[in-house]
């Protein structure tokens, strides 16, 4: 049986990779991901995990070696964030195109410059269009569970795509939380051994990564796009099976006190728990406010999101990243507006840029966001954005 213990979230993520019995880990250190790879190195060094740890000379080589190992048929894990992701991103796109089920934990951190090691979703957004499945954890238990689920999702022959498990740097990665660590028997019941569909097999040699001439490139990319779209039901299936076995239920989009709500805060990641405190107080004061949180970011759960915001009058969409579009909108709000565009009845959307590079987002800030979107909607302002907690 699983055991509930106090453990640092990074270590819990490493334990999840260990319980998944990974064969190869290839990683390069970067704050705040370091505790994940340090603990995995220890598990290998002490013989608790029978795996090869490749201490590569860069994140670019980390992902390159992951591709080699995964193509050889090994269950493969890595971890990075921010600048590390930026360096390996070229290879991330290729990992998805090669349909290799690599799992990567990303301890979300802001992008340079200026250089900053603190938490936001700049890296998550940088990987947005790379073809990876992206899951976003709210707390330590989720980071642990999603890591185990990620292998099952990635390796499913209906999917065969790499998966990023996002966990907020420091605010999740470095905190100690009570987490139920599943037993090996439980994980084995949930996660079947990895059986590659195509691999670098001497008996049946294949050519991987061939040149895509104009006559085939578009078809190859369409097939990849279909695979990503087709991943959603498999993700849901993997989450339903997890709930059946262990009782914790996961959905692509989570809702909190959304019944009859006029105003919804739209969030991703660990700040959602702060938002909950704000919503509790606002509900107690008689305000109709709730939360919609996106857990499955790629593929984007359009239908589930539309169902979750149905009936709401206004959305306060929080972006912990920028897209530098020259327009007053962060990347998540832009996408949500696109999702809402063809709806006959659609809520008013105001965007809040908040929590860049670890800047605190307080309970009051979420109340201000609800106030702000309601006032803007009442004044019928053209939809725009507010920078929360910024000195001007």
């Amino acid at each position, binding site marked *: 049986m699983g055991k509930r213990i106090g453990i640092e979230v990074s270590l819990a993520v490493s334990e999840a990779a260990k319980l998944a019995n990974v064969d190869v880990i290839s990683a390069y250190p970067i704050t705040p991901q370091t505790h994940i790879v340090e603990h995995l190195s220890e598990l290998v060094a002490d013989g608790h995990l029978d795996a090869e740890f490749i201490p590569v000379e860069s994140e*670019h080589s980390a992902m390159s070696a992951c591709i080699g190992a995964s193509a050889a048929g090994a269950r493969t894990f890595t971890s990075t964030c921010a600048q590390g992701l930026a360096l390996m991103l070229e290879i991330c796109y290729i990992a998805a195109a090669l349909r290799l089920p690599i799992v990567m934990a990303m301890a979300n951190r802001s992008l340079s410059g200026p250089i900053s090691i603190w938490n936001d979703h700049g890296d998550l957004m940088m990987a947005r269009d790379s073809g990876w499945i992206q899951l976003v954890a709210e707390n330590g238990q989720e980071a642990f569970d999603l890591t185990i689920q990620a292998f099952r999702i990635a390796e499913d022959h209906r999917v065969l795509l790499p998966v990023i498990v996002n966990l907020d740097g420091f605010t999740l990665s470095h905190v100690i939380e009570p987490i139920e660590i599943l037993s090996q028997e439980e994980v084995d019941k949930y996660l079947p051994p990895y059986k590659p569909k195509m691999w670098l097999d001497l008996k049946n040699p294949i050519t991987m990564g*061939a040149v895509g001439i104009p006559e085939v490139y578009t078809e*190859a990319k369409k097939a990849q796009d279909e695979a990503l779209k087709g991943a959603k039901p498999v993700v849901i299936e993997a989450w339903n099976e997890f709930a059946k076995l262990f009782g914790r239920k996961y959905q692509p989009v989570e809702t909190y006190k959304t019944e009859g709500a006029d105003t919804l805060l739209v969030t991703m990641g660990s700040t959602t728990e702060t938002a909950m405190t704000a919503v509790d107080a606002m509900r107690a004061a008689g305000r109709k406010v709730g939360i919609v949180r996106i857990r499955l970011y790629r593929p984007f759960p359009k239908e589930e999101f539309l169902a979750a915001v149905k009936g709401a009058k206004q959305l306060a969409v929080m972006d912990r990243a920028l897209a530098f579009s020259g327009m007053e909108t962060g990347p998540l709000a832009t996408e949500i507006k696109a999702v809402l565009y063809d709806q006959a009845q659609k809520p008013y959307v105001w965007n809040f840029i908040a929590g860049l590079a670890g800047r605190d987002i307080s309970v009051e800030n979420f109340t201000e966001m609800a106030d702000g979107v309601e006032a803007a909607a009442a004044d019928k302002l053209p939809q725009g954005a507010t920078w929360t907690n910024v000195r001007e």
Partner: protein
Amino acid sequence: MKSAAEALKGFKKFNPKKLPVEEPLTPGHRACQGCGEVLALRQVMKALGHDTIVASATGCMEIITSSYPHSAWKVPWLHVAFENAAAVASGIEVGYKALMRKGKIPEKKVTFVGMGGDGATADIGMQALSGALERGHNFIYLCFDNEAYMNTGIQRSSSTPYGASTTTSPAGKKSIGQSTWKKNMAAIAVAHGTPYVATCNPYYYLDLMNKAKKASLVEGPAYLHIYSPCPTGWRCNPEEALTTARLAVQTKIFPLYEVIDGKYVMSRKISKPKPVSEYFAIQRRFRHLGEADIAYIQKRIDEEYNHLLLLAGETPGGEGEAKEE
């Protein structure tokens, strides 16, 4: 771990009358007429045989052999990007190692290869190669050196020889062409403590095949620097690719040697060298060079060759034990 010298004890050379008939790299690919690079690759693959897995960098050999839905490869082959073939090969090697140890696939001797051109090796892929050599993976890295970025249209690399005219080091009124000396990649591989390093050339095909086989027998990394004549980029006639390859050795411009556990051994000692001008004469990339330029290059080539002989414990100018052309 066995030293390279121990691993190569009793090495059986290829018999020219009984060369392997197998062709892990098949004909029908799209190489240019007279391509010396694909010829060298074919010879290497014949020597290594079918229990080989190849990670290729982006470049000529990648595009000519893998245009979907065609493939010239009869061994498992993976191309990812330009600068990471060594890192990819290290991942494949480690993946196999882990799966064999965990009993998920049967134990077997497999040769892991990473390969790239001179740009993919000496320039953009240098870091990944350095990392893989330093970590000591049991793999062979093949650098096919055609002395410029030929796939993109003959741009200079750090492996382009001094004085060569390329599209980004063009000879002109104020330019001699390439103004820097060729990077010594073999020495860089040696500096990593690589157990087996060798230079090879497709004209001397038995030497090349023997070195490829030796590279597969040593434990840990091996690096082969393979001279790869490119008539298209060097502006010579396609039928002269191998003449060029032979002259490169006879003029001491591209000496053939091995470095076994750090110890240099000449494969072929040239005591009656031909002048470098003979080598330059059949390649239009050098046609702008004047007498003074050629004299400078000749002097530096002589000095470097003598230095190499000293490393190998041989006497410059004298008759050595190594076979002469």
